[in-house]
């Protein structure tokens, strides 16, 4: 194993993490809700049927996109990205991510950031599980196939 050492990148990531944490703390302190993105998004779908929860969820999701856009405007090239798969891979993996996050009651934000902070046993187990399977998948895709 070779480790990429980029201290400026680590600082930038740390700063990003602090902003994410601040957002999650605000949402819990003000609205009393957990900043779990898969649950918030799924709560907008017609199948959710809880209309009273609809508007804040739509606004949060809209905020995510606006946040990305604002950031890209202020810092050109900030949202640079390199895609890892083609169209079919995106569609298939999107399906699996959507199905899995609902079945497992959360994703990186709800389990990883908020659940661990609440020392929820379920969230700790879920985070270890998706990290492990993510690493195994990358290992298979990059070093076996």
């Amino acid at each position, binding site marked *: 194993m070779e480790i990429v050492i980029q201290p400026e990148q680590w600082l930038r990531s740390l700063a990003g993490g602090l902003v994410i944490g*601040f957002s999650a703390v605000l949402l819990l302190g003000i609205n009393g809700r957990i900043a779990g993105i898969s649950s918030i998004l*799924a709560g907008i779908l017609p199948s959710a049927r809880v209309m009273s929860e609809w508007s*804040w969820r739509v606004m949060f999701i809209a905020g995510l996109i606006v946040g990305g856009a604002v950031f890209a405007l202020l810092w050109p090239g900030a949202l640079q990205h390199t895609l890892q798969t083609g169209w079919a891979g995106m569609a298939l993996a999107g399906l699996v991510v959507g199905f899995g996050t609902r079945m497992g009651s959360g994703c*990186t934000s709800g389990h990883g950031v908020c659940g661990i902070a609440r020392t929820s046993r379920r969230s700790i187990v879920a985070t270890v599980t998706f*990290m492990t399977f993510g690493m195994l998948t990358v290992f298979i895709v*990059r070093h076996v196939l």
Partner: protein
Amino acid sequence: MTFRKSLSALLCGLLFGVGLSLGGMTDPAKVVAFLDLAGRWDPSLAFVMGGALLLTTPAFRWLLRLKRPMFEERFVLPTKQDLDLNLLAGAALFGIGWGITGLCPGPAIVALATGVPQFFVFVVAMIVGMWLSDRVTLLQTRRQMMRTTVPSTSNLSGS
């Protein structure tokens, strides 16, 4: 009431989106490099989760001791406590999809701001997957309810 709750949610979403972009989570190549322990491992993204937890861990502990949040009557928290198969299988599936594309739900939504069509394909497929999963859960609960109510009704008809 609803207006200010929506406004604070918008602000939180905005901050969250900025944090994900700043942290580097919106670049699938960085995510995959973080998950690639056997290759050139880029630990940067550990700082994103670490930085977030640095704030949420003490702050949540403090907040949840309060009687109520600012704009609501009570805190709405997950109620499930037990480790079940759905949690493990769901997290495993999510991990596989995350490893293939380097995208988890939040960054995928933020990346829609780039206008790159592949991100739209991912997000639409993700929504379909969520809907499917919720349908399956609904059918499971219905079947369970049937199982618990059917014997009692058959008893009634038998007597």
